[in-house]
Each structure stands twice: as C-alpha cells, then as structure tokens.
C-alpha cells in the first residue's frame, strides 16, 4: 500500500499546497487542522471529485492524477472509497440497495454475496429494507462504510466522520470505525479537527494549516515534541510565546528568550531551524507557593495569580508572567486545594517540556 499526494490548487483567494505519503499497509494517516484549512479539499483532490491545478496523486504505483503526464483518472476509475461528512446515502434506495450500489461491475450473485457480507459485518440485519431517512445517524454511518467496503477500494478517505453524530454516540462508533479501519488491508486518510480522535484512531498525522501541509509525524511525536507552532496549537498546547534562540547549549538544547513571558528558558528538546515561538503545555508545569522551594530549578517563572477557573475535572489557573502575557496552568482539583488563596506562584518549566517551535511570525 502506498499513496503519494503532492498537489496544488487555487480557489479564489485560498491556495492549497499539500504533500504527504502513506507508506505502510493499513496505516491510518490523519490530516489534522482547524476548519477551513483545506483538509477536505485535499480529500476531494485524491478522490478526483476536484481537479488540482498541478501536482500528482499516486496510489500503489498507479497515477490517479499527474499534471506533468496529463493523467486525470475520473473518480469512478480510482478505487478510492470516500466517507462523506453527512454520509451521502442515496435517499431513494434501501439500505441493501445502497450497499449494493457500492459493488460496481460485478455479477448479480457477487453483488448479493457482498451485500450479505457487509450487512453481517456491520450488524445491519433487520434494517436491510429501510431507507436512509428511517435510520439513526449511527446506522447511516455504518451503511455508508458498508457501501464503501462493498466496492473493495484500495484506499479509504474519511471526512470528519463523527461530526454528524451526537456526543454520547460517538464513542461507540469510534470503536467500530477503529476496528473497521484496522481490518482494512489498504490505507486510510482521516480528516479531523479533533486531536483526541486523531490520537486514539490514527498512526501518523500531517498537520494542515492555512492550506499548507507540514511534515508527517507519528502520533507520539505530535503530542510530545511538535516542532511547529501550528502543530503545537492543534495538539492542544495552550501556552505559546514569541521566542528566539539566546544561547546554544551544546549538541542538544538551547536557551530561548521568550519575549511574551519575559523570561529565558532552557530546553533540552531538539531545536528546529528558524525558531519563532516557545510552547509550554498547561498540564506539564509545576508550581510552588514558596519561591524558596523552586530555588536551584533551571527554569523558574515568577508569576502573579490572575484568576482561578473551576473546570469540570480540573482547576485552571491563569498566571501573569513577568513579560505581561498570561500563562495557563492546569491541575487536578485536589492538587490545587493546598495552593488556593496564593497570590504569587513560582512556576517551574522543566527543560524537557519547553518546546521550541518554528513556523510562526518571527519574534
């Protein structure tokens, strides 16, 4: 299984420029980015329902689109399954007929066999003769997946598959989807703006920001050591400051002058070229009410407590840094209890959690 995508497309004032590869069998790649960043457009270019201006899309060595060789296969010849956000089931057909519509160019017997197989696999027994309007959102999603798999595609594209489902239903279908994609022999490209879904479902991730794709990362890399501002923000990093490298610290690590926070912080993480920002995850910070207890620690940020927010399962503390910008600290409610009422806190950022980031506007 291999998918190579490298396409450019202009649409009005928006320009799309994405490139990534899916290399191994049953790899699930996430395209992660905020709404309107071009993730869905990318899927449409792969499926062929939208034609890129230039570039190429190769699937298992087959050119689906190649502007230099003037290849542009119609969608029906691409063997790419596409799970649409609203599932796009044919409203005039029964569940059975919808699934059967996925099996194109096969004999009547083979189609019936595949429909029966998918009905079993997705537990659709008893609703085969209903129409999409009579199904719940979850059932619709299962029928849409069954329809795609009945066509035996080489690749599956999923466009925010949970956006049409209610919160409490999502979990159940997420597990079902995970099983389905794991069992699928080809690769999958999963579009989402939800980092938690991506963390649980995918193997690799490509952050897309403002029409541009960044380097492909493994899921642990995205969440532990994102190297760009966009990746840090989409992976849930709440604290970023404009920063520049103030001093090298040997082969690994450096000192970053963080302008918004008004401090210099040591980092032991790899420093990408062109650092513009530093990031700190709200959960990884440590705080001391007594500054003496922070003495000797490498990165200490003396802060004033600005406000304390009681959240569902945690306490969020907004801290005023020497540079004037706010820093967000988050901890268990129990951990905050002994510190409640403190006006000043010494914040300790271990050098292993200070993330040097590139790709933002320069400091």
């Amino acid at each position, binding site marked *: 299984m291999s998918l190579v995508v490298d396409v450019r497309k202009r649409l009005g004032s928006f320009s799309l420029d994405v490139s990534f590869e899916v290399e191994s069998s049953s790899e699930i790649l996430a395209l992660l980015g905020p709404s309107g960043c071009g993730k869905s457009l990318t899927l*449409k270019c792969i*499926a*062929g*329902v939208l034609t890129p201006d230039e570039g190429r899309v190769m699937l298992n060595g087959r050119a689906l689109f190649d502007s230099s060789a003037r290849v542009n296969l*119609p*969608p*029906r*010849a*691409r*063997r*790419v*399954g*596409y799970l*649409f956000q*609203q599932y*796009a*089931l*044919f*409203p*005039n057909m029964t569940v059975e007929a919808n699934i059967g*519509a*996925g099996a*194109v*160019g096969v004999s009547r017997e083979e189609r019936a066999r595949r429909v029966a197989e998918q009905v079993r696999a997705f537990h659709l027994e008893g609703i085969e003769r209903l*129409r*999409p*309007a*009579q*199904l*719940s*959102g979850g059932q619709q999603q299962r029928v849409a997946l069954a*329809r*795609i798999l009945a*066509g035996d595609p080489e690749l599956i594209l999923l466009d925010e598959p949970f956006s049409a489902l209610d919160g409490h239903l999502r979990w159940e279908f997420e597990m079902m989807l995970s099983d389905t994609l794991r069992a699928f022999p080809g690769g999958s490209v999963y579009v989402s703006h939800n980092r938690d879904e991506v963390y649980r479902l995918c193997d690799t991730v490509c952050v897309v920001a403002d029409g541009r794709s960044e380097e492909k990362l493994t899921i642990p890399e995205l969440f532990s050591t994102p190297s760009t501002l966009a990746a840090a923000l989409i992976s849930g990093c709440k604290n970023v400051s404009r920063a520049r490298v103030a001093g090298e610290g040997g082969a690994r690590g450096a000192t970053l002058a963080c302008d918004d926070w008004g401090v210099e912080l040591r980092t032991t993480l790899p420093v990408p070229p062109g650092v513009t920002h530093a990031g700190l995850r709200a959960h990884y910070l440590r705080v001391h009410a007594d500054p003496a207890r922070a003495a000797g620690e490498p990165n200490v940020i003396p802060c004033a407590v600005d406000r304390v927010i009681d959240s569902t399962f945690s306490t969020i503390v907004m801290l005023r840094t020497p540079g004037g910008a706010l820093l967000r600290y988050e901890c268990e409610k129990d951990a905050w209890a002994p510190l409640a009422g403190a006006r000043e806190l010494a914040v300790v950022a271990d050098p292993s959690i200070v993330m040097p980031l590139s790709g933002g506007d320069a400091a």
Partner: protein
Amino acid sequence: MDWYPLINSLRIAAISTVVVFFAGIWLANLVARAPRLVKGALDVVLTLPLVLPPTVVGYLLLVLLGPRRPLGALAAQLLDLRLTMVWYAAVFATVIVSFPLMYRTARGAFEAFDPTLADAARTLGHSERWIFWRVKMPCCLQGIVAGAVLAFARALGEYGATSMLCGYTPGSTATVATTVYQLWRTGDDAGALTWVLVNLAISAVVLLAMNWFEARGRAGAAARRAGAR
C-alpha cells in the same frame, strides 16, 4: 352533445406535456449546471413565455409557421403539411406557453439536489448516466411530476395563442377553451355553461392531484427529518 372539443383539448395537452416533459428536464439539468452568466441568459429566454401575453406568442408563432413563412412553407413543400389552422398546430402554442412551468419546477428540483450524492456515486464507480437515472431523477421526481402536472393544466387551458394559430373550426380545431368563447359569442349561454363546468371539473381534478403529490412530499420530508434525529 359533441365531445370533440374535450377529446381535442386532452390530446393536445397530452402531446404537449410529453414534449415539454423531456425538453424541460433536459434544459433544466443543463441550466442548473451551467456557469452563472450562461445560466442567467438562458433562464430569461426559457422563462419568457411565462410573462408574455399568449397573443404575442401566437403572433411570433404565426410569423414562423404561417403558410408563407419560412418554417410553414418548408413543411408544406417537404411534407405537404399545414402548420396552422389544423388541430395539431395548437401543440406548438401549448408547448411554448407551458414549457416555462415544467422547466422552472424541474430546475428548482435539480438545484435542490445535493451534489455530494453525485460525488459519492462517482467515487463508488458509477457513470454520469447511472447517477442521473438512478439517483438524481428519483430524488427530484416530485418536483418533476409537479412541473408536468402544471404544464398539463396550462396546456389544457391555453386560449390566446391557440385561437390565433388554429382559429375555431367545430370538429377540427375546436378546444374546450375556444368553444366556451365561441358559444358565448354566438349567444349560446347554456352551451357555454356546460363547457365552463367541464373546465372547472378538469381543473379541480388537476389541482387535487397536485396537492396529493405535495402532501406526499411533505410526509416524505417529515420522515427524513425524524430519521435524522
């Protein structure tokens, strides 16, 4: 009583509805997908007969189809066929006058069609022809049938252009609408009233059919909404 005007009206309306049905679907589908500028221009041309007085349509048709006019002369020479003052000449008038009703209703239905359904069908491996006949048409059927019923009703009631093209010849070009006028003009009030009642009855049936289709559509939409929940 001579039922000829009713039979003539029904056959004219039926033929014209068949023509308008296919032409309307074809052009509506074309215009629904056309670029904006072309769409605007075509839309004006295709809807024009809806706002023109039928006498203007009749005049323009006579200019084209009259015995000494280009198309009329051609038909006479090649096929030995008259295009005016014969019963089937009314079909030209009713096609032009009822076409916008079919076209606009069908276009509305096509424009409301969710294009992702077509995209989904394409990615599943289906041809454009399959998509049109198996997904698009069934999804838009209600609007299309409604348009056809409206076009049929309009064709049945056509008077202005028809009388200009065919005149009134009993047993030949007489239709329900022209008969009502002719009988009233000659002082046969009772005869005119009979045909008025016939006309009212047909119109009521057509409107009932329309409402039945609409109610069925609403029930379908309600079921879809309930299903989404």
